[in-house]
C-alpha cells in the first residue's frame, strides 16, 4: 500500500467522523459512559485490593517463649528457637520482643494501671512471626507449636481464617464484576459501532463494486473505530483523574491510621487512564473490524 493511500485512509477516517456526525456522537457517547464506569470501578477495585493486601500483610503470629530462670540458658534457648523458626520454609520474618517490651505495649494499649506490673513482670518474652505468603500463616503456626521451648502460639486461628475467606470472596466478587463490566462494555460499544456501520453498508457495497480490496474498505473504518475509542476516552480520563485527585486530597488525612488507605494519585491515575485508553482503542477497532467483516463477506 502506497504512503499516499495510507494518508488518504487517515484523512478519510477523520472526514468520515464529521460526515456521520450523529452516528459518531452516538458511538462516542456510548464509549464515554461505559469507559467512565470502567474507570470508576477500576479505581474502587484497586483501592480495595490494596487494602486487602495490607490487611493480609499485617497478619502475624505471636510465639510465647517458655520461661527459663537462668539468663544464659534462656538466651541460648531463645537464639536456638529463633534459628529453628527461621528455618521453616513458610517464614518470612521473625521479630523478638522481650517481656519488658511486651509490658510497654500492654501499658500503651490498656493504660497506666498496668504499670503496677513493672515491679514483677508476669509476661513472657515473645516472637512475632510473619509468613512469606499470608495464606500459609496457620500452617506455619502449626509447625512452630511443635518446637521446643514454645509455650504457646497466638494466631487467632478463627479470625485469620475468616479474614482470609472474606478477602478471597471480596476479590472473587470484584473479579466477576470486572469481567461482567468488561463484557458489557465490549458488547455495548461494538454494537453501537455496528449500528453506525450497518447504516453505511451501501458505502461498503459501492467501495467493493468499484474494485476496492477488503483492506482498502476496512482500514478507514478501523481508524474511525480507533478515533471513536480515543475521543470517547478523553472525558472519562479527565473526570476520573480530577475526581480521584480531589478525593485523595480530602480523604487521605481523614483516613490516617485507618484500615482503609487510598492509593497514591500517581501511578494509580496513569494506570487507570492507560486502561481506559487501551480499552477504548481496542474495543473501537474490534467493533469496527467485526462489523465491517460481516459486509465484506457478503
Amino acid at each position: 500500500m502506497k504512503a499516499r493511500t495510507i494518508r488518504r485512509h487517515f484523512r478519510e477516517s477523520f472526514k468520515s467522523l464529521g460526515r456521520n456526525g450523529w452516528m459518531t456522537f452516538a458511538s462516542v457517547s456510548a464509549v464515554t459512559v461505559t469507559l467512565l464506569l470502567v474507570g470508576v470501578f477500576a479505581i474502587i477495585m484497586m483501592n480495595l485490593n490494596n487494602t486487602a493486601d495490607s490487611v493480609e500483610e499485617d497478619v502475624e503470629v505471636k510465639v510465647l517463649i517458655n520461661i527459663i530462670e537462668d539468663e544464659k540458658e534462656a538466651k541460648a534457648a531463645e537464639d536456638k528457637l529463633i534459628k529453628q523458626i527461621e528455618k521453616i520454609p513458610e517464614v518470612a520474618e521473625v521479630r523478638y520482643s522481650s517481656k519488658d517490651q511486651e509490658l510497654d505495649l500492654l501499658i500503651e494499649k490498656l493504660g497506666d494501671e498496668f504499670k503496677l506490673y513493672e515491679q514483677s513482670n508476669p509476661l513472657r518474652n515473645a516472637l512475632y512471626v510473619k509468613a512469606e505468603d499470608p495464606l500459609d500463616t496457620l500452617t506455619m503456626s502449626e509447625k512452630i507449636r511443635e518446637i521446643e521451648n514454645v509455650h504457646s502460639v497466638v494466631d487467632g486461628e478463627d479470625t485469620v481464617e475468616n479474614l482470609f475467606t472474606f478477602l478471597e470472596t471480596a476479590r472473587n466478587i470484584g473479579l466477576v464484576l470486572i469481567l461482567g463490566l468488561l463484557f458489557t462494555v465490549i458488547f455495548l460499544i461494538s454494537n453501537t459501532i455496528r449500528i453506525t456501520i450497518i447504516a453505511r453498508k451501501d458505502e461498503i457495497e459501492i467501495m467493493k463494486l468499484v474494485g476496492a480490496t477488503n483492506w482498502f474498505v476496512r482500514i478507514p473504518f478501523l481508524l474511525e473505530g480507533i478515533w471513536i475509542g480515543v475521543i470517547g476516552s478523553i472525558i472519562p480520563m479527565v473526570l476520573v483523574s480530577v475526581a480521584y485527585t480531589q478525593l485523595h486530597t480530602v480523604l487521605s488525612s481523614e483516613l490516617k491510621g485507618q484500615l482503609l488507605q487510598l492509593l497514591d494519585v500517581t501511578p494509580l491515575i496513569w494506570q487507570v487512564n492507560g486502561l481506559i485508553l487501551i480499552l477504548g482503542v481496542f474495543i473501537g477497532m474490534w467493533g469496527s473490524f467485526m462489523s465491517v467483516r460481516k459486509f465484506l463477506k457478503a
Partner: protein
Amino acid sequence: MISMKDVYKKYPNGVVAANGISVDIQQGEFVYVVGPSGAGKSTFIKMMYSEEKPTSGDVIINGKNIAKMKRNQIPQLRRELGVVFQDFKLLPKLNVFENVAFALEVIEEHPKVIKKRVMEVLDLVGLKHKMRMLPSELSGGEQQRISIARSIVNVPKIVIADEPTGNLDPDNSWEIMKIFEEINTRGTTVVMATHNREIVNTIRRRVITVEGGMIARDVDGGDYGYES
C-alpha cells in the same frame, strides 16, 4: 471479450436463473439485454461483474474465467469494468467530484491523474459545473450521469449497466443513452439490461432476449421483440 459457456445458476431457494446460457460479446459491441421481470436478466448481468457466481459453466471476461476466480481476485476484475445501476449507487456524503474520484482512489492512482481524469469525464457527462454538489442536490438524471462518469473514469474496456434508465423520465433517459453511445463510439463495450422498449427500438443494436434463464433470441440490430 465476454464469453459465457453453458452457464447454469441455481439459487439456494431453488430458483434457476440461468439455464445453460452460452453467448459471446465482442470488443466494441453495444448489447441490450431484454426480457420480462424474473427472466434472469439481472443474474446474467451480475455474473459479468462477479456479484453472482454461476453454479456451473464458465464466464470469461477479458480473458479471465471469473467463475473460477478466487475472492481476492474480484477487486482486480472490477477495476477493469464499469458498472452502472438503476439506483445510481452514489455515496450520499461525498460530493460529485469525490464520488467519481473514488473509483480511481481505490486503484491508488496519483492525485494529479485523478483530478485530470475526473474533470474529463465530468466534462463528458456535462456536469463539471456541479462537481462540488452532493448527490442529493442533483436530479435523478444528473445522478445517473455521475454514476456513468464514475464507471468510465478508469477507462474500462467494458461498461455494464443494469436498467440505467429505469428510474428516469424519457428526456433524461435519452440524455443517458447519448452518453452510452458516446462511450461506445470510443471503443468501449456496453452491455445494458433494459425494459425501455422505445430506446431499444430507436437505437438499433444487438438485442439478447433472456426468458426462463435461457437466451430466447439474439439478433443484431433487433427490436424489443416481446410484449412487456
